[in-house]
């Protein structure tokens, strides 16, 4: 109930007037609907049985007048509540999305995109449907129930008491039905999700299936998942086929009682024929509210569960935010300092006391086995995380004293597996600076050795990429991401294995361009390949979250980590000496990952 109250407070704020209006119109519609059987009763008793045919016109006119009013009220109710509910939904979703954009890396590391999507779409819709319609129904149906019961008792108390006996059972049965059906339908959805996953995997992995000629085996897997859906659906059908007829037959029992008992009363003169007919009509009016009230309870439960999931996201506090005292950075020189930095993910230490100064304009390569914390260290610079203890400073200012926008707008970051948007190539490159000129875009693309392939695309710079457009190779994507980072002319450039999928020659061109462009820019490279280490003025060798050695590429034995068997042939002696160490490192990396309990500390 506390959640429910909180949901109402949170999501319905500013909509109370419109909601009240919608409720008022709903009550009006209901009340007007109650008038029709009353007029029929009058018409039967006074005009037909009583012989005053002249009154028929009056009753017909009354029915029409009430119906017209009712139409107007119902239209108003639908439009008003539709408007409110959609406003609530849109606001909720905007708010949820805005909030999501403020949440940091730590949140996204433990959340699945699909989960968040279903909260922002399905759960938000469930909440709005209930808040906007469910609540109104709850109230109007209760009103219908009470007023119809009152009318029936007014017409003939004994008949009312007897004929209403089956009615509460509708409510109870409808509730039981909904309670049993819902888990079954939920299970159907689960089975469908499972089949979708099976299908998705088989379709995406069709090359493997064909290469191994295991079509038959995969068809069997699919057929099994398909049969599961069938079985679960049939279970739901079983529940339906038992409850639906039961709920359907109960009102008939009421009508039979009215006919049998009420008919005798009419014959005995205790009840008019018109009242009997009206009784019949009023009982019919009760069926729907009874069913709905039974289901509304489950509806409410589901809406509350959905609301909880939405609130859960809204309750997530961003871990990295601007302090109230944070100041905008002016143009950076680009000196970076890590001061006694430690960092832990979910209490698993990733960085254990690192102190390091990177001078303005310097190029530093971070080298180390998988899981040693090099990517995490690099991600501390744009303040994707705050250190657990210690501090990171740029130009001598602690990052936590700066505004995120002024910091990040001066940092360019390129990932190993970069994310590109389903926009044109041009819009992707100028993502960080949407008003950049054509020339600036082309220059950035050229520096990233991407200009040639972009021009060869079907629509050049206007080619749309992603789901609805052209698929790019890993190397092409990396080059676009590099161009995107270079376009904002960052003072600090972070390259996280950013050219791993680029072939050697193109990489050489990029390296060339980068060295030329560098000027006084500070560059931090998370290096996985010897060619990129060469770019560095200094190499930082990391091991299990600590610095093992810092020095020039000649001083630091980084080959232990990155030795490639190119050197096995070329510099056989060197490689042979290092191979044992490399193998040991690889094994250590796996063990470290084991200890971390996941894919490693690098996010």
């Amino acid at each position, binding site marked *: 109930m506390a959640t429910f109250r909180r949901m109402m407070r949170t999501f319905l704020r500013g909509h109370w007037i419109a909601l009240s209006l919608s409720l008022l119109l709903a009550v009006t519609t209901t009340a007007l609907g109650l008038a029709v059987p009353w007029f029929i009763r009058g018409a039967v008793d006074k005009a037909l049985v009583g012989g005053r045919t002249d009154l028929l016109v009056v009753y017909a006119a009354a029915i029409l007048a009430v119906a017209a009013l009712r139409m107007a009220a119902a239209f108003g109710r639908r439009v008003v509540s539709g408007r409110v509910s959609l406003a609530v939904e849109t606001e909720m979703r905007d708010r949820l999305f805005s909030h999501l954009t*403020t949440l940091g890396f730590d949140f996204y590391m433990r959340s699945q995109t699909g989960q968040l999507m279903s909260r922002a779409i399905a759960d938000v819709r469930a909440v709005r449907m209930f808040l906007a319609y469910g609540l109104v129904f709850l109230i109007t149906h209760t009103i219908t129930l009470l007023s119809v019961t009152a009318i029936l008792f007014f017409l003939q108390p004994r008949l009312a008491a007897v004929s209403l006996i089956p009615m509460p059972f509708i409510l109870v049965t409808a509730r039981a039905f909904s309670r049993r059906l819902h888990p079954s339908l939920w299970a159907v959805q689960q089975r469908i999700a499972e089949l979708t996953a099976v299908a998705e995997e088989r379709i995406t992995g069709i090359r493997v299936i064909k290469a191994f000629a295991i079509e038959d085996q995969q068809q069997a897997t699919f057929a099994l998942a398909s049969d599961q859906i069938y079985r679960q659906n049939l279970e739901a059908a079983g529940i339906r*086929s038992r409850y639906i007829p039961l709920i359907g037959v109960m009102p008939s029992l009421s009508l039979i009682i009215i006919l049998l008992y009420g008919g005798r009363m009419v014959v005995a003169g205790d009840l008019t024929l018109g009242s009997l007919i009206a009784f019949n009509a009023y009982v019919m009016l009760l069926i729907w509210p009874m069913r709905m009230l039974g289901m509304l309870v489950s509806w409410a439960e589901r809406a509350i569960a959905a609301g909880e999931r939405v609130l859960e996201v809204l309750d997530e506090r961003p871990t990295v935010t601007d302090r109230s005292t944070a100041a905008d950075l002016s143009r950076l020189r680009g000196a970076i300092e890590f001061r006694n930095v430690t960092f832990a993910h979910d209490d698993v230490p990733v960085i254990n006391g690192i102190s390091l100064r990177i001078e303005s304009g310097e190029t530093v390569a971070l080298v180390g086995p998988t899981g040693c914390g090099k990517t995490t260290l690099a991600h501390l610079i744009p303040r994707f995380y705050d250190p657990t203890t210690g501090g990171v400073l740029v130009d001598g200012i602690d990052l936590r004293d700066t505004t995120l926008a002024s910091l*990040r707008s001066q940092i360019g970051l390129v990932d190993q597996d970069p994310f590109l948007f389903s926009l044109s190539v041009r819009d992707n490159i100028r993502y960080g600076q949407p008003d950049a000129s054509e020339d600036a875009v082309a220059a950035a693309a050229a520096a990233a050795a991407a200009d040639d392939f972009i021009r060869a695309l079907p629509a050049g710079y206007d080619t749309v990429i992603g789901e609805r457009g052209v698929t790019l190779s890993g190397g092409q994507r990396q080059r676009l991401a590099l161009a995107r980072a270079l376009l904002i002319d960052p003072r600090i450039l972070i390259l996280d294995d950013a050219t791993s999928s680029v072939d050697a020659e193109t990489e050489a061109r990029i390296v060339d361009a980068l060295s030329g462009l560098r000027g006084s820019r500070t560059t931090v490279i998370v290096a996985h390949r010897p060619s990129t280490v060469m770019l560095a003025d200094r190499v930082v060798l990391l091991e299990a979250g600590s610095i093992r050695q810092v020095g020039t590429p000649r001083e630091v034995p980084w080959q232990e980590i990155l030795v490639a068997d190119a050197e096995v042939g070329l510099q056989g002696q060197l490689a042979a000496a290092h191979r044992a160490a490399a193998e040991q490192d690889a094994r250590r990396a796996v063990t470290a990952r084991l200890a971390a309990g996941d894919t490693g500390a690098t996010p």
Partner: protein
Amino acid sequence: MSGVRVWMRHRAFVRLASYVRGYRLQALGTVACMIALTACGLAGPYLLRLAIDRGIAAGDLGYLTQIAAVYLAVSLLGALFNGLQTYGVNWVGERVVRDLRDDLFRHLTSLDLGYYTRQRAGWIISRLTNDIEALEQLLVEGSAQLVTNTLTLCGAVIILFSMDVRLATVTMSVLPILLAGTVVFRMRAVTAYRRVRNSVGDVTAVLQENLSGIRVVQAFTREADSRGVFARVNEHYRRANMNTVVLSGAYFPAVEFLSAVATALILLYGGHQVARGAITVGVLVAFIGYLSSFFDPVEALSDLYNTIQSSGAALEKILSVLDTEPGDAERAGGLSTTRLAGDITLHGVSFAYAVEAGEVLDRVDLHIPAGQRVALVGPTGAGKSTLARLLLRFYQPTQGVVLVDGIDLRDYDVREYRRHVGYVSQEPYLFSGTVLDNIRLSRPQADLAEVRAAALELGIDDLLSSLPEGYDTRVHERGSRLSAGERQLVAFARAFFAHPQILILDEATSSVDPGTEHRLESALSRLLQGRTALVIAHRLSTVETADRIIVMEDGRIVEDGGHSGLLTQRGPYSQLYHAQFLARGLVGTTHSGTEAGRYSSEPRQNDTE
């Protein structure tokens, strides 16, 4: 909708009906239950009429009791038929859906890879899920609605006319307005709901993209812009929905108003008839009772029109997939073979992925004797991977012929043939399941010991065992719990486990760390004895140990020979080699990035991608 389309759709539904044929008896039984259910439903107002006229008005209490008893019996029977009908329609409908879904998937797996290049995965999956669900809605809910509502509507009209023709005519006078209004509403609603669906799609797409790319959004501080874009699509969604709210807000109250008009007409005209003694009070009450029996079905059938439209479209899309013929590459039948020697010959092989796209391979002639280990090098886009795909018969050459053991590849039974070929690609695809399951993909019944024996031979058993849960480590979509290198190891083991006679490695170890890669290399030179291997590599280090090196450029073979021989020729291979040599070798002599820039002045290959 044009005549052709109507005809097409008609044909589509006829084909759907052929799926029901297997469950003919159950389907007929279900329809019989629907008819009985409708009859029971229609009996109510008629019984009420009899009770009023002959029981209450006549003061015949015995008759009233009899009618009540009949009413009870009819209600109970109705409930019984309702239950049977509900279960029956689900039983038949869900079976048909399951059969169709299985057929569709089976057909999809038989299609050639060209199809999968032309169609996006999302599109294909949508046929298997969304379209099938649309059909399910029609088969299960739609069919019951269609039968019972049509019968109710017809039954009500017949009963009304048989009770009193003139009153029936008066009552029916609202029907034209109802029908016209319904058609107008339906036509508008189709467009309105399409807009809602599209706008929901946009909301989902923007959400998905921004959540997946949240790092980039935050890194470039574009949060405000993203929020702006999202607010815009969200607002479109709201407007599209508002449209449907107004539409149905007008339609449904209007239908209720018409129903009241009909009630007033019955009361007015029927009342006078009653006064004149032309009809009884019971008939009048029954008429009012039957009103809902034709207003409700009209509303329901108009809803159904929507379902039929969308499921018809879905069915056509499904059938278009089922009607797609697998390309020649997948043609079943042909020579089955228990053992291959692995001798490969290409005669003037040319290939283009599509007619309008350029040729990727240009008259390639090549002979690889059984047991040879060949390295394929060259810049990206040279056609190396395409050559590998032709060897797997993923595609057929546009010109020329590929021979294996002297027999045209087209003459083999494709699945039989592929069982002899092992293939590891650069970005291997792993299925969700355990590492163990992935390795024994070709023989799911194999046990852990067999799998480990294979991994031991490859020298990677210790690496796989040291994964978080060893061989039982679960692999998720795209293998995200494993690193790229670990995924490649699993794919390697998987290919090796199938005991292929021909092994194709397409950048198979690009993400494996050098130490492990070296272990694999040495294991391979042992394991590849007597097998033919084609190794595609960017890193030339993996190339040197091959029996033979083939250099490709622009879809042609430009050099062919041994490592040292090619180096002395000072051709493309030696240039490639030296570029990489310098990239690595320079490290020992310089530490300055600026100086390192010098090596880019080396002669460069054309870098097509």
